[in-house]
């Protein structure tokens, strides 16, 4: 098992090196003539006005919050699914109940209008 994780560990470093190679090649091959106008923020030829990093529509973050609940829920369900053979019937229904509670959460978010794009 540890050998398998060694593979993943080496894979992470190699996978990071592979996309770096063309970037390093580009560094040597590509021309570099920076100037002030070229380095400006692109905005269809108009000078950009104001700060970009502003507070923005909250709706995007509401979705992120709802996502967080469901993501963690699924992680909890994986061990449940793997050990399905040895689970007693009670544990299966407990898992179903867990999903139902989350479905109730989704329903609540729905009725509250958290899923409306307005």
């Amino acid at each position: 098992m540890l050998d398998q994780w060694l593979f993943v560990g080496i894979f992470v470093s190699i996978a990071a090196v592979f996309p770096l190679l063309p970037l390093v090649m580009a560094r040597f091959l590509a021309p570099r003539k920076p100037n002030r106008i070229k380095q400006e923020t692109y905005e269809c030829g108009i000078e950009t006005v104001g700060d970009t990093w502003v507070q923005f529509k909250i709706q995007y973050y509401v979705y992120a919050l709802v996502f967080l609940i469901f993501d963690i829920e699924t992680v909890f369900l994986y061990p449940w699914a793997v050990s399905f053979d040895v689970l007693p019937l009670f544990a299966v229904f407990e898992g179903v109940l867990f999903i139902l509670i989350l479905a109730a959460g989704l329903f609540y978010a729905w009725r509250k209008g958290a899923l409306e794009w307005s």
Partner: protein
Amino acid sequence: MTFFEDPVVFLSNLIQDLLVGLNLAPSVVTFFMTLLGVVIVASFGLIAVIFLIWLERKVAARFQDRIGPNRAGPYGLLQTFADIIKLITKEDITPDNADKVAFNIAPILSVVSVLLIWAVIPFASGWIGSDINVGVLYIGAVGSFGILSVLMAGWSSNNKYALLGAFRAVAQLISYEVPMLITLLIPVLLARTMGLMGIVEAQSTWFVVYAPLPALIFLISSIAEIGRTPFDLLEAESEIVAGFHTEYTGMKFGLFFAGEFLHAFTIGVLTAILFFGGWRGPGAETYPVLGVIYLMLKALGGYFIVMWVRTTLPRIRIDHMLNFNWKLLVPVTLALLMLIAVLDKAFAGTALYLPALIAANLVVFAGLMVALRQLAVRQRKERKRFKKRPVAKPA
């Protein structure tokens, strides 16, 4: 073991004997063998992408009644190499206002996140990079880095279009992660293991037979995860220039591009492994080379569907896209998961197993259709409450 039966095991034994013959310590031998395996698997992914870009351009061209690349090399096969050379020799521009660190890491991360999935892909019987026992969870985990790279690229560019693309990425990619993770759970439930090799071995009947609806939902949410048409809101070129990668030039843009194509093909591979029996097929047990061919054919089939959808459908509006996910896909997948879990426990090992699971799929599908119909009727009534708009008549 001869070369023709299993070339990979044959060659790896040969190299291992050679290394042991050099009087190296066993741990060093293991390290070198693992390193060799990593380089082979990782380059397989990256070399595949060169071919895939050509393939996709050719197929998309045919869909649009064009010929596609046909100048560089036979059938335009060298077109991608020409593109790579062009991208490498282009000037790399980093905007003055950008957050330099995040700006430079993002394109690398976008390729890494997809490439990492290939570490656990079973190519054939016994041919797998790393058969870890949490394979599916690992895929879900490294897949999320892709979202991070999009967000980093959009935020660090300090460009309003890029930022809008990043915001949309948060809403879209994150939302579609939910049905994708839940449908990933269903093959795990049916196979009783998270290891991908185990999932393939458990499919004496393909899981798509037991769970056609989850397979479809997995494919849809995966297409949304890649951010392709009809879900390409994060780089919608007619609205926000190029979305999150507006400020990227040269090879850094190329990496985003390569990452997207590799991801699309990886989706095909994953669908094949999780629902269509992976490398299984006649003779694949004894001749692993056949297994690779089966897997690649199935994966190309899935990839073709992704291309087909891309060239056929227009982009959908953001509220429709989010409603489709949260009000349709998520409830349906939750219902399917509950039904399949209960039926699996009740009928596992009996003759009723397959009919029961198919019936569950049909019931959910029928329920979905009834609900959609009612919604359509209600919307039609709503529309009738308003008078018809006066239409300008020709004089």
